[in-house]
C-alpha cells in the first residue's frame, strides 16, 4: 500500500512541479470556457438569416409573406437566385432555402391552393428548424386570413354585397383581432436570460477531464519508453501496485483540475449551493476515476506514445460527441442510444442537475438523458421554439370545402 501511495505521490508532485503543464491544464479549460461564453453567452437570443428564392417577385401575397417574415425579431431575409441557392446548398454554405413558387400570389388571389417549398440539407440544422417555424407561422397567418375572407364570401354570397366591401370588412376585423387577440401567449421568465454557464460549464469540465485520459495513457507508455517500467519490474513492486498508483495519481490530477474549475465557477458565477458544490466534488472524483481507468487501459494496450495519443483522442472525441456536450444528440437516434455508453453523458447530466436544480447526489443518480433535444435546442431554454420540419403541422382547414389556401 505504501508503494502505491508513493507512486501516486510522485506523479502528483511531478504534475504540481511542472509549471507549464500545471498552467496549461488549469488555464486552458478556463480560457476555452471564456471563449465559449463569449461566443454564445451574449447571443442566446435567436439570430439568423432566411434565404429566399423568390420566383414570384412583386406579387401582392409574396410581399405580404416577406413582410410578415421580416417582422420576426432577429431574423433577416436574403433573397438569392435559384441557381445560387442550389450551389450554396450543395456546398453546405447554407442549410435551408425557402422558395416562393411562380404564380404564388395569383393562385392565392384566385382561391387556389399553393405551396411554399423548403429546400434543405438533412434537417436544416438548428437555425433552419427555427426559421422553418417562423416561415410556417407567417404562412399560417396569411392562410388564416385568406380562409376567413373565403368563408365570409361564401356566407354572404347571396346577399349581394360587393367583393371589395367584404374584403375591407374582413380586413378590419383581422386588424382588430391582431390588436386585441382572443388567444395570447404569456411569458414567465426564470432568470434574466438563458444561462450559458449552466449549459457549457459541465461540457467544458468533463471534456477536459476526458483529455486527461491521454495523459494517463501517455504516462504508462512513457514509463515503458524511458525504461523505468522495466527497472521497476526488477524490484519487488507488483505490476498491479504500479497500475493502482498511476490510477490514483491521475484520478487526483483530474480531480484537482475539476475542483479548481468548479470552485472558480462557484466563486464567480454563483451557480452552486454549498451542498450542490460538495456533491459536484463527489461527481468530479467519480468521473476523474473513470477517466483515469480508461487511460490506464489505453496505456496498457498502446505500444508507442503516438498510438496512445490517437486512441485517446479518438476515444475523447467519441465521448464528447456521443454525450452531446456541444452538439445536440437526438434521444431516439442510434447516437442517442450509443450515448448511454459515454462517460460524459452521465457526468454532464449529473453536473447540470446539480447546477440547475441545486440538487443532492440522489438527484443525479439514474440520469442518462441529454441536455439537448434535436428539435428544440437546449431543453432548459425558454419555450417557443418551432416544431421539427417534416412533422405534420396542424394547418387550419375548412370543414366545408377542405380548402387549404397556403401550405408548405
Amino acid at each position, binding site marked *: 500500500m*505504501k*508503494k502505491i501511495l*508513493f*507512486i501516486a505521490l*510522485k506523479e502528483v508532485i*511531478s504534475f504540481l*512541479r*511542472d509549471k507549464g503543464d500545471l498552467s496549461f491544464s488549469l488555464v486552458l479549460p478556463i480560457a476555452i470556457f471564456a471563449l465559449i461564453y463569449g461566443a454564445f453567452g451574449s447571443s442566446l437570443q435567436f439570430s439568423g438569416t432566411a434565404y429566399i428564392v423568390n420566383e414570384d417577385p412583386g406579387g401582392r401575397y409574396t410581399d405580404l409573406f416577406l413582410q410578415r417574415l421580416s417582422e420576426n425579431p432577429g431574423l433577416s431575409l436574403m433573397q438569392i437566385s435559384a441557381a445560387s441557392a442550389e450551389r450554396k446548398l450543395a456546398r453546405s454554405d447554407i442549410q435551408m432555402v425557402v422558395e416562393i413558387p411562380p404564380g404564388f400570389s395569383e393562385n392565392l388571389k384566385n382561391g387556389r391552393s399553393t405551396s411554399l417549398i423548403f429546400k434543405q440539407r438533412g434537417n436544416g440544422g438548428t437555425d433552419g428548424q427555427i426559421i422553418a417555424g417562423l416561415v410556417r407561422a407567417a404562412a399560417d397567418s396569411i392562410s388564416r386570413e385568406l380562409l376567413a375572407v373565403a368563408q365570409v364570401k361564401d356566407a354572404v354570397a347571396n346577399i349581394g354585397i360587393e367583393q371589395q366591401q367584404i374584403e375591407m370588412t374582413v380586413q378590419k376585423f383581422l386588424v382588430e383581432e391582431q390588436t386585441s387577440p382572443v388567444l395570447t401567449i404569456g411569458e414567465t421568465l426564470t432568470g434574466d436570460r438563458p444561462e450559458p454557464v449552466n449549459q457549457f460549464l459541465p461540457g467544458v469540465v468533463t471534456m477536459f477531464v476526458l483529455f486527461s485520459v491521454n495523459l494517463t495513457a501517455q504516462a504508462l507508455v512513457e514509463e515503458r519508453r*524511458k*525504461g*523505468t517500467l*522495466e*527497472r*521497476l*519490474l*526488477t*524490484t*519487488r*513492486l507488483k505490476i498491479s501496485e504500479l497500475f493502482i498508483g498511476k490510477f490514483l495519481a491521475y484520478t487526483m490530477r483530474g480531480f484537482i483540475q475539476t475542483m479548481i474549475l468548479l470552485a472558480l465557477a462557484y466563486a464567480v458565477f454563483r451557480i452552486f449551493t454549498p451542498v450542490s458544490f460538495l456533491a459536484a466534488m463527489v461527481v468530479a472524483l467519480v468521473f476523474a476515476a473513470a477517466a483515469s481507468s480508461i487511460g490506464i487501459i489505453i496505456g496498457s494496450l498502446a505500444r508507442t506514445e503516438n498510438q496512445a495519443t490517437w486512441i485517446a483522442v479518438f476515444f475523447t472525441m467519441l465521448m464528447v460527441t456521443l454525450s452531446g456536450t456541444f452538439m445536440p444528440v437526438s434521444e431516439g437516434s442510434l447516437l442517442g442510444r450509443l450515448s448511454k455508453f459515454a462517460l460524459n453523458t452521465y457526468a454532464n447530466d449529473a453536473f447540470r442537475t446539480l447546477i440547475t436544480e441545486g440538487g443532492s447526489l440522489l438527484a443525479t443518480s439514474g440520469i442518462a438523458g441529454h441536455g439537448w433535444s434535436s428539435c428544440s435546442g437546449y431543453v432548459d431554454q425558454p419555450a417557443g421554439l418551432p416544431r421539427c420540419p417534416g412533422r405534420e403541422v396542424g394547418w387550419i382547414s375548412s370543414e366545408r370545402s377542405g380548402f387549404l389556401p397556403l401550405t408548405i
Partner: protein
Amino acid sequence: MAENFVVVRDLYKSFKDVIAVNGVSFSIEEGEIFGLLGPNGAGKTTTIRILSTVIPPDKGDVIIGGYSLQKEANNIRGIIGICPQELALYPDMSAFDNLVFFGRMAGLSSQEAREQAIANLEMMGLLERAKKSRVDKFSGGMKRRVNLAIALMGHPRLLFLDEPTIGIDPQSRNNIYETIKGLQAKGMTILYTTHYMEEADKLCQRVAIMDSGKIVAMGTPEALKSQFGDPDKITLEEVFLKITGRSLRD
C-alpha cells in the same frame, strides 16, 4: 574457492523467428566481476533481461543467490540491482528524488531510502547537485552515474551493469570504474557487459564472449589472450575480433 552466486544452465529465448539466446550456460562466483561481451545482437541484453526477471526464458535453469528464477523470482528481485543500457530514470525529478523513489520501490523505508540515496550520490560524486537540479539538466556522464547510483539502492548482492560507461567522458568513466571496484571489494557480484574490451580486460576476472545467442569463448582475459598469442602483446579486442569475426553486425 568462492561459491557460485549465479548459475545459468542451457538458457534459451526466442522472439518470433529470431533465436536471441541459444543454449547459454555459465556461472558467476560470489564477489566476481563477470564480463559478458559480444557484438551487437549477440544476446547479451536479452540474457540480462532474463536474469533480472524482466522476461521469462523459453527453456533453461537459472539460480541466483540460491533462488530459482522460475519459482522464486520475487526473492531474486530482492537481491539484484540493474543499471540498464538506456538511462532509466525520471528526468523531471532530482537525482536525490530518483534514488529515494527507486529505493522505496526496492522496499526501503523512507529513512533508509534517504540515507542510502545520500551515501550513493556521494560515492558517485553527485551529492552537490543531487537535490538542486532536475536530472534532465545533468550532463551525459552525470546521468550515467545517477543511473548506476539507482541500481545500488536496496543494497543488491548481484549487480547487472549493461554498458554503464557508454558515451561518457573519461572522468565519469573513471569514477564508475572506481565505484565498481569498490563494490566488488565489499563483496558484490557483478555481471558486466561492454563493448570496450580494454574496460573488460581491466575490470573483469572472467569474461564470456557471446555471438549469435551462444557463448563462443569463456575464461579469464589472460587465458583467452594466451589462446591466440602472447598475452602481453595481444589485446582482448584482437581476441574478440578473431573469435567473432570482422563482418559488420546489425
